[in-house]
């Protein structure tokens, strides 16, 4: 008996087209069907054999769809390993296989599956479909050796043709109605399902998938998911599927119309019996709405946290202000009260000489002036917070004004030397002279206050473009990097000033900058760093804008 070589058998049995036809027939691993039970029964009677089988052969096994003569309560194996039964030869050769005597030990060893049924002779004929694929066999078995006649072989073939016709009919019906479990699931799933081959090309998609990604079946032909996920995401996904056999992720998908949607993708590999991936199935769900809600929630959280932080900062700033204000206001009050009490006491005790009397009066005068200044500053801040600070514009000579401020300051700063350098030029301006005096005094006060070790303070005045530029340069504690603007914020103070406990409310420069801006000018600070001095520059236009002026009442 001539048999094809083993590898040829495997190749023919494993022909993908044949296997596809076999799967489409939906006969494997299915419950017994009376429609097929008839064929082995008739074969058994007509050929007067004790046993008959209708089998289907895939790449790994010969599956018994129905059998006759196997015993009333036959519960033996529903399948044989492919290589242990001769059905594979029928399939590979597309023709009958007649084995007359299987009693030899060699035959028993070659076909242990049918030997186990007690068979001594075998006749199998192909179940060939209309499309030309052999799906399995119709076979009869005898317990005695038997020479199968041509007539018997032809009879069995006729029967097999009828069985194959039934299988064809059934396959057509399945394809027409989509009436298989798999088709049902894919078609009716509420999720987008698509199948891609191992190279990532689309094979199939369901309606939901089509609507989700927005491409028709024709448009997807030969395409990969890169068309809507982008190349990088696609490559990562395929790599993971090849490696681990599954993939889960949230991806952004671009629909054909350009709209971006959030997709939750869960994909897995469908493998051969030998473990080689054949297809990848991807299940996609539109999570755009969920993601949007999530993002909105996150934004809300962020906004809330920001608001809370701002509130905390505000509370801290207020606390700090209150504690500094408390110190700044109580100190002069304590000084004045102490001086007054001392004045009275010394007078009562008869110890109040002229020197002490004059000294206490001077003390009260200076301190109350400072208190008045502080009160004015606080009122200015309060006014600025409500947006009201209007100017009384008058023609004034800034040079004269600044000389006056400088000489006033020299009297108060015995430990500092204040130099004034005025470049030749015309310094007549239209400004609010009281406010400019306030700004320049404040700048000089600061220069003195923040150069704790004394030293030289240089004031320069020069014409600069359409305006006038004043600089106050000290050799004091300077400004830490990045704090040049902080000192102009309400209650903002340089960290090194706070660290050194130099008293101050942090409102003077805030008020000064607002006054400068109200004049249409600018006020800014420069410093090369801590302990490297500070330069404050005030630029004022020759003429403050008219809208800054306070209307006459």
């Amino acid at each position, binding site marked *: 008996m001539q048999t094809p070589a083993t590898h040829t058998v495997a190749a023919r049995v494993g022909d993908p087209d044949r296997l596809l036809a076999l799967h489409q027939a939906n006969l494997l691993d299915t419950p017994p069907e009376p429609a097929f039970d008839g064929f082995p029964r008739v074969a058994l009677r007509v050929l007067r054999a004790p046993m008959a089988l209708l089998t289907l052969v895939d790449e790994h096994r010969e599956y018994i769809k129905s059998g006759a003569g196997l015993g009333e309560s036959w519960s033996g194996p529903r399948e044989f390993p492919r290589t242990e039964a001769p059905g594979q030869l029928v399939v590979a050769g597309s023709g009958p296989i007649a084995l007359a005597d299987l009693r030899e030990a060699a035959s028993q060893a070659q076909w242990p599956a049918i030997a186990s049924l007690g068979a001594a002779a075998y006749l199998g004929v192909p179940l060939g479909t209309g499309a030309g694929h052999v799906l399995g066999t119709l076979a009869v078995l005898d317990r005695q050796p038997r020479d199968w006649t041509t007539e018997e072989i032809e009879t069995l073939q006729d029967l097999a043709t009828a069985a194959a016709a039934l299988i064809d009919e059934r396959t057509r019906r399945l394809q027409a109605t989509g009436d298989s479990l798999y088709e049902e699931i894919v078609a009716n799933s509420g999720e987008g399902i698509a199948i891609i081959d191992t190279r990532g090309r689309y094979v199939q998609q369901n309606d939901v998938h089509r609507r989700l990604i927005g491409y028709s079946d024709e448009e997807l032909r030969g395409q990969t998911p890169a068309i809507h996920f982008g190349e990088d995401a696609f490559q990562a996904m395929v790599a993971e599927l090849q490696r681990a056999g599954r993939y889960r992720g949230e991806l952004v998908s671009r629909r054909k119309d350009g709209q971006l949607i959030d997709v939750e993708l869960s994909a897995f590999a469908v493998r051969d019996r030998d473990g080689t991936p054949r297809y990848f199935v991807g299940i996609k769900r539109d999570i755009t709405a969920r993601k949007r809600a999530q993002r909105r929630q996150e934004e809300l959280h962020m906004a809330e946290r920001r608001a809370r932080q701002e509130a905390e900062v505000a509370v801290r700033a207020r606390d700090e202000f*209150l*504690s500094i204000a*408390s*110190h*700044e*206001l*109580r*100190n*002069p*009050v*304590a*000084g*004045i*009260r*102490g*001086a007054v*009490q*001392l004045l009275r*006491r*010394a007078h009562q*005790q008869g*110890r109040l000489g002229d020197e*002490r009397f004059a*000294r206490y009066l001077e*003390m*009260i005068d*200076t*301190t109350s002036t400072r208190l008045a200044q502080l009160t004015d500053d606080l009122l200015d801040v309060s006014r600025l917070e409500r947006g009201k600070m209007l100017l009384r514009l008058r023609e004034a000579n800034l040079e004269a004004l600044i000389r006056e401020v400088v000489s006033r300051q020299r009297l108060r700063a015995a430990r500092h030397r204040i130099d004034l350098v005025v470049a030749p030029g015309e310094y007549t301006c239209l400004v609010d002279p009281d406010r400019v005096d306030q700004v320049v005094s404040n700048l000089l006060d600061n220069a003195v206050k923040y150069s*704790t070790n004394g030293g030289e303070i240089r004031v320069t005045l020069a014409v600069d473009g359409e305006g006038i530029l004043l600089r106050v340069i000290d050799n004091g504690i300077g400004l830490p990097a990045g704090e040049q603007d902080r000192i102009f914020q309400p209650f903002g103070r340089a960290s090194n000033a706070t660290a*050194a*406990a*130099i*008293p101050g409310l942090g409102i003077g420069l805030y008020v000064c900058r607002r006054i400068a801006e109200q004049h249409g000018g600018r006020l800014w600070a420069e410093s090369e760093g801590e302990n490297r001095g500070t330069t404050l520059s005030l630029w004022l236009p020759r003429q403050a804008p008219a809208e800054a002026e306070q209307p006459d009442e």
Partner: protein
Amino acid sequence: MSDALRVLVVEDEDAIGEVMVDVLRDEGYEVRRARHGREALELLQHWMPSLIVLDLMMPIMDGRAFREEQRRVPTIADVPVVLISGAREVEARCQEIGAVAALEKPFDIESLLSVVSRYTSQVA
């Protein structure tokens, strides 16, 4: 009055500092004044008082930092300190820095004198 009780006033605010110095001198104390903690520590190297009247918020070295330094130097660590401050919650500050008493600014001369006399007499 070579054996007069000595009081060190540490206060940056001139008006308050001068008033305290004058009042205490009028009462017969020997008084020195420092404008901040650093100056006070220098003075304490060669001049030992019975009591220190200490302001809290001062430039260069504030009252809190002064106390930390003071406690580290055995010879001056035990000199009692009266806190005098315009800060809020003076009593709490007083506890924090371990002062024997606190005066809140603005204060009466009489209370200053009674506190100073109480704590200098204990020492004497």
